[in-house]
């Protein structure tokens, strides 16, 4: 528990606005400050389209904040950084690459030796249960399998911080549940700092060590919950249910 309080990523006072249809600037992320600790599973929970994705894009270095900054291990983030991995909401698998080539995309761009990255990729392919599908193209996979590829791809790039942007949003309830179990297993085997975005309270409570609850658009931090329930968690656990009720009463309705 000691290491948990070592700050890995420091987000200080970041804001971002976009021009709306009438051309006026509208705030999407409003003055957010947040510390991400080493090795924690941090969940960002907020109603649909509340600006979480914008926040994520800024953390990942894909967008520049209007104000404030994101600092990783003492270094300000201005462009995408190999220390950070991302599992995309719409999987973002490259349709022209096979599963293996998708997963090894990152190391190949970095110019790593083939032997090393293939071995590592195989390890993660086995871990997410895609053994035998190495040569398939994304269109041949189901939604759940595609996102497994996305997860294996992020891990194979060996990031220090892993960002998951509503990774299971497009899956049906059954697949979603089993994918949550899967993520938990992987996290146990291969501990990394994870920032996980979701709009599903149950999912947040299943996975998160800490849950940041956001307001509806623009995104502001509403409340921070520490989830001190041992994993794997039981959805019928008393503390679980109480927290769930509390969070759900505190959540803004998004229409």
């Amino acid at each position, binding site marked *: 528990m000691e290491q948990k309080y070592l700050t890995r990523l420091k987000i200080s006072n970041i804001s971002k606005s976009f021009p709306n249809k009438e051309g006026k600037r509208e705030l999407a992320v409003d003055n957010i400050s947040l510390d991400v600790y080493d090795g924690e599973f941090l969940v960002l929970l907020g109603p649909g389209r509340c600006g979480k994705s914008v926040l994520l*894009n800024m953390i*990942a270095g*894909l967008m520049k904040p209007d104000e404030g900054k994101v600092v990783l291990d003492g270094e300000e983030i201005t*462009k*995408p950084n*190999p220390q*950070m*991995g*991302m599992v*995309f909401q*719409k999987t*973002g698998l*490259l*349709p*022209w*690459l096979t599963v293996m080539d998708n997963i090894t*995309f*990152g*190391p190949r*761009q*970095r110019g790593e030796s083939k032997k090393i990255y293939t071995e590592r990729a195989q390890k993660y392919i086995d871990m997410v249960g895609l053994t035998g599908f190495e040569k398939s*193209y*994304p*269109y041949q996979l189901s939604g759940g399998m595609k996102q497994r590829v996305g997860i294996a*791809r992020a891990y194979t*790039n060996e990031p220090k911080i892993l960002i998951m942007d509503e990774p299971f949003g497009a899956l049906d309830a059954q697949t979603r549940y089993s994918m949550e179990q899967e993520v938990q297993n992987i996290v146990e085997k291969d501990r990394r700092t994870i920032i996980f975005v979701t709009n599903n309270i149950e999912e947040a409570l299943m996975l998160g060590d800490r849950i940041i609850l956001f307001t509806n658009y623009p995104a502001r931090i509403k409340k921070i919950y520490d989830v001190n329930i041992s994993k794997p968690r039981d959805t019928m656990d008393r503390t679980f249910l109480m927290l769930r009720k509390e969070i759900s009463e505190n959540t803004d309705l998004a229409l």
Partner: protein
Amino acid sequence: MRIKKEKISTEYKMKYSIWYHVLPFLSIGLLIAVWYLGSSSNPMIFPTPNTVLRRMIELSQNKLSGYTLIGHMGVSLLRVAVSLGLAIIIGVPLGVLIGWSRGVRATIGAVFECIRPIPMLAWIPLMVMWFGIGEKSKIIMIFMAALMPIVVNSYTGIKMISPLYLDVGKMFNASTEWQLLRSIVLPAALPTIFAGIRNATSMALMVVLAAEMIAARAGLGFLINRGMEVFDVSLVMSGMVAIGVTGALVAVLTNFIERKLCPWNRSI
């Protein structure tokens, strides 16, 4: 997927129907019958299928203007292949550049956009004035006709790339423009670029005919034109059949190459 199944089951039922199998033959039979009927009135201007077939066999055995029918097909195809090759070598990089760089788009792209609405066939008279009617002039005409669709498609293909793929590239270490271009942009645009090459091929086949009909000593357009000059309609029709067959063969070939190059693309 459930929807597809339903469609397949109705199609499956259809296939048991006798008509489903008989109709295609009936239609071709009807076509030939109408052809015969039409040509019986005036075989001079409307030769029978028989005559055309005999003419084609004769053409493939005896040389006309130095080539057999296959030879003339070869001449036209060679012209198309050379021009198309040049158009791909120049057009794809040009289109990619216009799509990728804002500066190139604002300059070369703008000029291109201005020339684009002028149909390729309208260039032919000017080309004849500039370059005469020799081999070089034909190659230039076909090249220009093929260049347009290739450039336009390469450019559109690049413009249409989903920003998500660029994000993926950036997140996974494609840090330089060149890396992004090579590992994300080009493969993502490849199917669209290929569609452009397919359009270019049919444009090139059209223009090679037009060019050969203006003046040539060999090629399918020459055959058609010669047929018209000496009022030999069966020769004209033989040329048309040959160009139809050539077009179909070229289409099969491009499809095959596309399947090999873009195995992930299911719209082929």
